[in-house]
């Protein structure tokens, strides 16, 4: 087990390194000079002289060779210094830290919701295979992976916000400020964010439960005279959840992708919204660091998923 963990850890470090390379060099292809945008902002104050421009290049380290810029960036990120946003004139780390709790709050709620709903729905669908509830679950999971999340947000805003006036249509309050308001405002965005994960988890659970049900040890459990309850929870559920764990990581990636849209639709000041506005402002310091943080989270969570998978299922570890 230890060697398996070490092997996976080393691989993750290599992958993270390649991720930084990809992000950095993609960002170098950006058309237009970020400083020109900066100067556009300054235009009102009488423009910028050539010397001031040169000074700014030095200040943001843009005068150095690419390879130096790359190591400055990675080295900075490792020390917790992500550089300064050219657009916001603020430390990128501070910008991210301000918005991260928002994204995390919605993310955790959705993660918990879609895993619970997905497993329950997948279980029921498999245990009642071919019944009405199974067809219902199938349709839900098809809709979940087919629906554009931003459109779902707009649809819910239209129905529950504008028409019925049950939920606020935009805005966000931190749970530490006002918990009730936070929950009220989270309902629609969290539902949107979790639908896709819900669908993916339900499908995986259903097929995995169906496979476990036909195993010999389940027949043995029945013939031992165990109650249905014991068989479902102790034998079927436990064994069928192993393959579901891998999908949880995939769901996380999908959810982060969804947050970019949902934060936009519901005007929620999270990392996703910061990312989109930075893309339009060509604020590459923010874009590259925000992208790296999100990618790193997804990769690390998948590492944890892989390791726990190996822990739950010894066949993987030694394979």
């Amino acid at each position, binding site marked *: 087990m230890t060697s398996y963990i070490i092997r996976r850890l080393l691989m993750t470090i290599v992958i993270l390194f390649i991720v930084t390379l990809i992000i950095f060099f993609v960002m170098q292809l950006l058309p237009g000079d970020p400083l020109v945008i900066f100067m556009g902002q300054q235009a009102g104050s009488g423009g910028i002289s050539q010397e001031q421009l040169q000074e700014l290049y030095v200040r943001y380290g843009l005068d150095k060779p690419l390879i130096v810029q790359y190591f400055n960036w990675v080295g900075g990120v490792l020390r917790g210094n992500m550089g300064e946003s050219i657009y916001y004139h603020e430390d990128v780390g501070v910008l991210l830290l301000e918005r991260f709790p928002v994204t995390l709050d919605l993310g955790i709620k959705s993660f918990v919701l879609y895993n619970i709903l997905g497993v329950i729905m997948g279980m029921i669908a498999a245990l009642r295979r071919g019944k009405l509830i199974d067809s219902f679950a199938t349709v839900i999971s098809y809709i979940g992976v087919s629906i554009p999340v931003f*459109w779902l947000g707009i649809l819910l805003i239209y129905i529950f916000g504008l028409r019925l006036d049950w939920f606020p249509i935009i805005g966000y309050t931190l749970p530490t400020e006002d918990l009730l308001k936070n929950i009220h405002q989270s309902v629609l965005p969290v539902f949107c964010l979790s639908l896709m994960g819900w669908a993916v988890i339900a499908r995986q659970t259903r097929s995995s439960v169906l496979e476990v049900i036909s195993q010999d040890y389940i027949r043995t459990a029945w013939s031992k005279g165990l109650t249905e309850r014991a068989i479902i929870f102790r034998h079927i559920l436990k064994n069928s959840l192993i393959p579901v764990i891998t999908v949880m990581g995939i769901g996380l990636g999908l959810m982060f992708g*969804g947050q970019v849209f949902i934060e936009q639709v519901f005007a929620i000041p999270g990392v996703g919204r910061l990312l989109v506005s930075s893309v339009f402002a060509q604020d590459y310091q923010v874009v590259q660091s925000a992208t790296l943080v999100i990618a790193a989270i997804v990769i690390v969570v998948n590492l944890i998923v892989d390791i726990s998978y190996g822990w739950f299922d010894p066949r993987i570890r030694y394979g």
Partner: protein
Amino acid sequence: MTEKQAITTGVSEAPPRASEWKRFRRVFFQRKLVLFGLIILALLVLTAILAPLLTSYSPTQGNMTESLQQPSWKHLLGTDLQGRDTLARLIYGSRMALAVGFGSVLFAGAIGIILGLVAGYFGGITNMIIMRIMDALMGFPMILLALVISAVLGSGLLNVIIALSVATLPGYARVMHGLTLSIRENDFILAEQGMGASNIRTMFWHILPNGLPPMIVLITLQLGALILAEAGLSFLGLGIRPPNAAWGAMVADGRRYLLTFPWLSLAPGVAIMLVVFAFNLVGDGLRDALDPRLRGLL
């Protein structure tokens, strides 16, 4: 064929080809949902091809005197701010969706399949380099990578195709890599190599065709995901360039009039969902029909 017969004739049990095709047809067309998906896709393709015959309105040129109208017999789904017919824009939008979908699949599929094939076939350091890069690309949520790349390249049809291709590339490479590893172990590959077949010939004439069925399934499912992603990029303003009709951008544009003209935003979303739904249905149908492990069960 019974075991005894197999021994006496010295022929291993190979399922006859004809029945394989029959099984495919039976499994694939049997389910009503798959059929439903196929019909939607057929309608989509027809709509894209016959767009000018289906509507007399232009998707890009509006009539300012007819700005923001409610649905009527003249404009079945009303008009937008620039007085453009919403239905016409929906119809022409199918062209963009299909162009992005098929463009990215061709681009990313071809490169991804070759990368996976090469990595799996040669193994060693080649495999190491290619697959670690693919792992790194997979570390990004797909839409995020596409977002950053299209931000860098700018909007426009070709750039969207490139961005989505890079973002989906690792999926094809990974699946083809896995397939190559398992197909490579077969005796017929060894025999082929023993007869002096070149690496290129072995890879493209023997391994690739055997790996195609799962790749076709993947491509079909990817088409849905790509159309969804393109809609997302266009929604954010990073996709198809206006005034071209793209469904995602229509959802975004119509948002401001949600209370008074909900169809402006909601109708294109229905189109996106139906098409993605159809690709997913057909993809799943293909998977079940092509999966040899389900032989006998389905």
